[in-house]
């Protein structure tokens, strides 16, 4: 009995205790294909092995918080900017100025007050399946979405569980003012077929023809179209908000040196080009020397609003807006 138990204990311990050399543990929030392409390219460039987990940016923040006393991860790669900002302000992430800092697009750095390292930018837009519209015209503006012709044909993510949806709410409020935005949201709500829990899911519903119009990030719409779904992607005329994805060094990272090497590498034009070439990810990359992918939505042709990241990234503002949405819009029967 004693022997069996000891053997069991020893076996468990052996399984658990893998060798610990320098390697990068990555929390990866963008598209899975991009995350998968990073590891081999990074290891080829530097010889350092890389393991990653793909989790949404909210999930990533939750994990970094939960593990703050004993971090598992070294770098948090990508994902919408607000949680990166929160992580920085809470001190569970560390601001590291990379050597390529001066090559990063200045506007991206300035709108976030240089509080975290910008990795890419992507704008909100409409992703439309014309076939599923059933003859109704393409919506051109946010206001068009309130047209009763689109009843049951619109999908957007659920603001209570998706950062994408929150960016959409904040966009509308910044364009129309809070009260008018909520009136608009109420009318759009009547046309909504489904609020999805994941930010990229509306485009998939539209792709399969289960809805006709998806409100979400344009680079995801472009991706689904590239995969073969019959979708067109564009920005509404009144203007759209956008996200600035971050790359962040986690405070007390277990492999700090390797983590810094990864951040330096990930911001080079060669590494950033991987996103579009292998990663099915068509955001605007943050290094101005990166050759942007032809499918990436061109920011010069989009009416971008002046998104106030400092104000709308504040957890208290976020909480207030979401509560208002939950109390005023969510209960309306449709």
């Amino acid at each position, binding site marked *: 009995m004693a022997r069996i138990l000891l053997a069991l204990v020893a076996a468990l311990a052996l399984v658990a205790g893998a060798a610990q050399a320098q390697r990068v543990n990555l929390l990866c929030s963008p598209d899975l294909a991009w995350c998968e392409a990073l590891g081999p390219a990074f290891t080829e460039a530097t010889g350092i092995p890389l393991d990653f987990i793909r989790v949404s940016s909210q999930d990533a923040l939750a994990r970094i918080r939960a593990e703050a006393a004993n971090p598992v991860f070294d770098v948090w790669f990508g994902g919408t900017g607000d949680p990166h900002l929160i992580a920085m302000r809470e001190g569970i992430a560390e601001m590291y100025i990379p050597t390529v800092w001066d090559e990063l697009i200045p506007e991206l750095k300035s709108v976030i007050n240089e509080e975290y390292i910008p990795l890419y930018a992507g704008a909100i837009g409409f992703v439309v399946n014309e076939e599923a519209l059933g003859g109704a015209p393409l919506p051109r503006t946010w206001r068009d979405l309130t047209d009763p012709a689109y009843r049951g044909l619109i999908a957007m993510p659920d603001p209570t569980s998706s950062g994408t949806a929150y960016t959409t709410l904040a966009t509308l409020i910044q364009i129309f003012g809070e009260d008018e935005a909520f009136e608009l949201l109420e009318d759009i709500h009547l046309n909504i077929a489904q609020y*999805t829990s994941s930010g990229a899911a509306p485009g998939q519903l539209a792709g399969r023809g289960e809805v006709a119009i998806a409100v979400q990030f344009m680079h995801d719409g472009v991706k689904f179209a590239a995969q073969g779904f019959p979708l067109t992607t564009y920005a509404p005329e009144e203007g759209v908000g956008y996200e600035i994805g971050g790359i962040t060094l986690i405070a007390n990272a277990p492999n700090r040196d390797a983590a810094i090497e990864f951040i330096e590498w990930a911001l080079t034009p060669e590494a950033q080009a991987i996103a579009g070439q292998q990663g099915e990810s068509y955001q605007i990359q943050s290094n101005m020397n990166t050759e942007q992918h032809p499918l990436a939505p061109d920011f010069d042709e989009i009416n971008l609003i002046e998104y106030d990241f400092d104000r709308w990234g504040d957890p208290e503002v976020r909480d207030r807006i979401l509560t208002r949405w939950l109390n005023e819009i969510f209960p309306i029967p449709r």
Partner: protein
Amino acid sequence: MGLRFSGAWLPALIAIVGFLALPFGRPGRPFLTIDPNLYGWAIGHPLLWLVLASALAALVISLLKLPTSPRGDLLVVAGAVGLGAGVLWLLLTATPFGMGALVAATGMALVLGHALSESGRVQGDAFIATSILIVSLFVLLFIIYPLFMVLRSAFVIEGAFDLSQFRRTIGHPLFFFLENPRSAIDEVGLTLRWGVVVGLLSAGWALFRRQRLPVVLARLVLGGVLGLILGAMFYGRGALPTSLLTVAIVAPACTLLGLAFALLGQRSRFRPVRRSLDVISVLPIITPPFILAFAMIFLLGRRGIITHGVFDISSNWIYGIPGVALAQILAFTPIAYLLLRGSISSLNPALEEAAQTLGAGPWTTLKTITWPLVRPGLAAAFLLSMIESLADFGNPMILGGDRNFLATEVYLSLTGRYNAHEAASYGVVLLALVLLAFFVQRWWLGGGSFVTVTGKPSGGALAPIPRAIEVLLSAVLVVWTLFVASLYVSIVVGSFAQLWGVNYSLTTRHYRDFMTAGWPVFLYTARVAAISAVPAMLLGFLVAYLVSRHRFWGRRFVEFGSLLSFATPGTVMGVAYIFAFNTGPWLLTASATIIILALVFRNMPVAIRAAVAGLAQIDPSLEEASTMLRARSFTTLRRVLFPLLVNTLVTGLIFAFVSAMTAVSQVIFLVSPGNQLATVLLLGWVEQGQLGRAAAMGTILIVSMLLTILVVLALAQRISARVVRVES
């Protein structure tokens, strides 16, 4: 009489060596780091000296020539002090335990086991006493403690008892709201009306049955409450009424369908019917999560092949309660069937024959003989489908639409709203519901023995079911089989289609993608699942043996613990493990170990049930004979029970393995870099729209699990035949 030495000398020596040679704590996550500052003797804390001192004392005492019983008592003291001091030090300093602590604690636990047996405080030899001790410790550490941490996180905020967070969650519209000012109807009024109507109906029924007045009043109140709950489920919104309404649809449907299939399976005149039921019954266990829900969308959704293609319906009905309920009925009916099959097959045909000899027709027999006898089985099937429905994570994730469900809210509140207190509060509610269901079931079944198998062969053939009913049930089965088959076929088709749902030209692209991105994860998952299955089975067997063959102090505790581990919804247990094993002395997260442990304690109850059922068929006199011949209990277990139960145990092993392969909700929070699991990866692909690849992985999982089950069960039959032959 007395042994010259106590058997405790060896484990005491092991504890001493472990304490001296291995570090007691560790600086961080890695297990095998040797930090010279963290040796027990280098730290020099009085509690640690106490550990060493009591281990030495145990060694000396066990070698002393003393009467067995008082020596046992002394050893109990030494073992308990040593174990307690070590644990206390870990708790006080919150240092992650090291290998030294692990070995020393194991040694001291073994000392304590020997001592308890020798002192006569536990009836049984050292093996039994040690097993009881170890099993209790496991239950405490890996089931009770994590759940306690969930409670703590729901009610304790920054060190103080605080109900505000719990109240906030409960009062939140995502959890439950009834009166909707934006709707045209008056929800509260309608709910009240439901309460009144159902209350009056149930009281009226009691009057009609000429019950006494207090009973009628009690019926009025109970019925009123039931009506209010029904009304709130129907008119309310939020996670609580949504989950309850789904349960209210799924549990009766699964139980009825399960009963229908069980009747067919045991009493049908056609062999193919019984054969197809055997296949249907394993499907839910081998099917990975999420995939079936997608197949349903492509068959029944707005653009579904059946709904849109055949019937030209364009409706989003599938998102929400109807879709989730349908998916759950498909998934859990086979589970209800398996339970009911047992209770139908254990009906003694002689009873029915007797009824029919006395002139009862098939209907009367069914009503007066069969029904009361299958009632416990029905209750068990109802309860199980209820728990499964409440805990289901995969189907609401895909088909929930914008309705919230309790089990997914646990996940979404932690990952979408990053609020651990809220996740814990949802967990507490789920746990409370499940436990309530258990107690209601106990209360309903009450006393009364339903044992009809006496161990003596029961003669007579099973009465066939009435012809009309058989035809009806067979029709249900045929529709069911066709639908399930088309779902599985569409998964395979989806895995070979360019773009599932849009472009059906053939490709092997998804399988090639799977080989590069998914195959290593698949292999790793298989390894982890295999590693977890062995302890799950052994532990389950041990618990079953202890609980059904021994009376000991703490037996209820062990029973309750294993019940909890089985009843706790997976997402709640996953959150609990994060709370319990992320910092402090039991730091285990971000390792394969924590995943394996989670799977072991998740699947242990399956093995327990299998082993209890197996043990019930073995006459205890066999073991008594072995004990009489002076075999120790471990020898009896190994030489008598084990060979007789090989078949059961291998079945338990294989099901533990398969359910570990397809588990998702309990491990979704526990994966870490390098410890990725197939089902979690599958969720990632599904969320990213890589449906073809997901279908490819689903197909490979289903086929490989099916093959595994078939091959292993065939082998097991052969092995058990040989073992029985050799032993006799």
